């Protein structure tokens, strides 16, 4: 059974000035739209995570420019836009026994939740009161 997933690109960013800027510049020039991003960093380097509208193209553009990029399937949820909305979703996810690696928000009410085992997590969430979103919906977002 195919579950909805969203494609995430992770880019290795050395801690010299202008690297993140360079990534965003390249994507902008290729008319690729960023739907959400997150940066995790150490003293020496960072990992820039991106969700875009044209994933394959973005991968190509960045790799061509010499960046180390990988693509992963991640879970994307449409959050209820009320106080307690995020808390509710996170509680549902943890009650289902799913361990979260990291979370970050995208445009509008969308959020990425990454877990160690995506398939297993989706199996556990499919019957719960959360709305799972796929890449087509994210690519098509028009605010």
């Amino acid at each position, binding site marked *: 059974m195919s579950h909805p997933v969203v494609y995430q690109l992770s880019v290795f960013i050395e801690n010299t000035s202008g690297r993140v800027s360079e990534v965003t510049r390249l994507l902008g020039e290729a008319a690729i739209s960023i739907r959400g991003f997150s940066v995790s960093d150490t003293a020496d380097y960072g990992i820039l995570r991106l969700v875009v509208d044209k994933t394959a193209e973005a991968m190509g553009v960045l790799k061509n420019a010499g960046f*180390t990029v990988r693509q992963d399937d991640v879970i994307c949820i449409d959050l209820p836009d009320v106080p307690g909305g995020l808390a509710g979703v996170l509680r549902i996810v943890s009650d289902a026994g799913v361990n979260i690696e990291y979370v970050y928000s995208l445009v509008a009410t969308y959020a990425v939740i990454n877990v160690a085992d995506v398939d297993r997590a989706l199996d556990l969430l499919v019957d719960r009161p959360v709305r799972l979103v796929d890449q087509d919906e994210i690519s098509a977002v028009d605010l």
Partner: protein
Amino acid sequence: MPLWDAARESMNRNELADLQLSRLQQTVARVYARVPHYHDAMEQLGILPGHIRTLDDVRLLPFTDKTALRDTYPYGMFAVDLDQVVRVHSSSGTTGKPIVVGYTHADLETWSDLTARISSAAGVTARDRVQLAFLYGMFTGGWGMHYGMEKIGAMVIPAGSGNTERQIMMMRDFGTTALVCTPSYALYIAEVAEGMGVDLAHLPLRVGLFGGEPTGGKLRDEIEARLGILATDNYGLSEVMGPGVAGECEHQCGLHMAEDHFLFEVVDPESGLPVPEGTEGELVVTTLTKEAFPVLRYRTHDLTTIDTSVCECGRTLARMSKVRQRIDDMLIIRGVNVFPSQIEDVLAGIEGTAPHFLMVLDRQGAMDDLEVRVEVAEEIFSDVMADMVAFTDMVASRLHSVLGLRARVKLVEPGSIERSTGKTRRVLDRRNL
């Protein structure tokens, strides 16, 4: 400073040559009879012990290198029955397997005599209190110097390496007059002492015997200024004995070589042919009196020049210049021998990757600092930060267990490490030795 063994150290050079020849002939006959490696190597060249009629005939013999010693691990190169071996030491080989060397009673006697000799040359006497801040354990450094100092009758303080604050307290409280360690450690001691508010220059400390790594001019000047001592350089390698192969006298004009126990050649590293005196070449050593572990024409990979003129001190034994360069890619980092290929092996062992890496060496004050930069290849890149950190931690911990060295591991972008068209440059050595 009195000569430890005046008869030998100021021997007439013609008599020395005669002594060397007869010892060489005996050594060649012994190894031919007892060590399969040398027997086979000589047989392949059609050389018999009887062919060695002059000292120049040593060139008829094949060279020996580290590979041969490693491949015969552990006792394949020993020339005596093991029950005659009363000591073994080992040094690290390039890939996990160490080189094991052995000593009979007579070998230990010679060894202690030779380290007594270089210690005397540096001015150590029975009235000295010698702090041996040198590695003991399986290394030849501490033990070799220990027995020689004891022979002289000096008071030996077997401090070993590390525990620097305690070392400094001992220097102050025990009245240490002589220090034996690596030159880097000497500077480190100076740094820690300054931090403790101890003025080493005002202690009874007056002479140092430094080995394990080269003590280049600037390094020596700094040690002498900060510790208030005469800094002498000494040279040795465990494959032929350990410390005591050569050492400086108080005039600091080259390291007097133990020519009565070793036959030295300086050759062109490419052709293997001897270079004229005063020209730099690779030092090749043949043991003349070793019983348990004799070695023929061992290629040290160290570059030096030789001077056979008589020294101001009266010694006729030739002097070698300080070794500043090697012909292979071996590095000495904090006194530890390191080959870049070992880093390569560690990285390959983790997930079978062969990422580009660069070893960046700096000197932080007195100590060498190693940073290993690894290009992030896709195979090792993870979206989860914890995995990346685990990767660098694993590399650092493996490096520590393989090399015995602490290194920083830094991930860098692919392509950021310079490529070359020729031999891959694995090392950026920014130390000013």
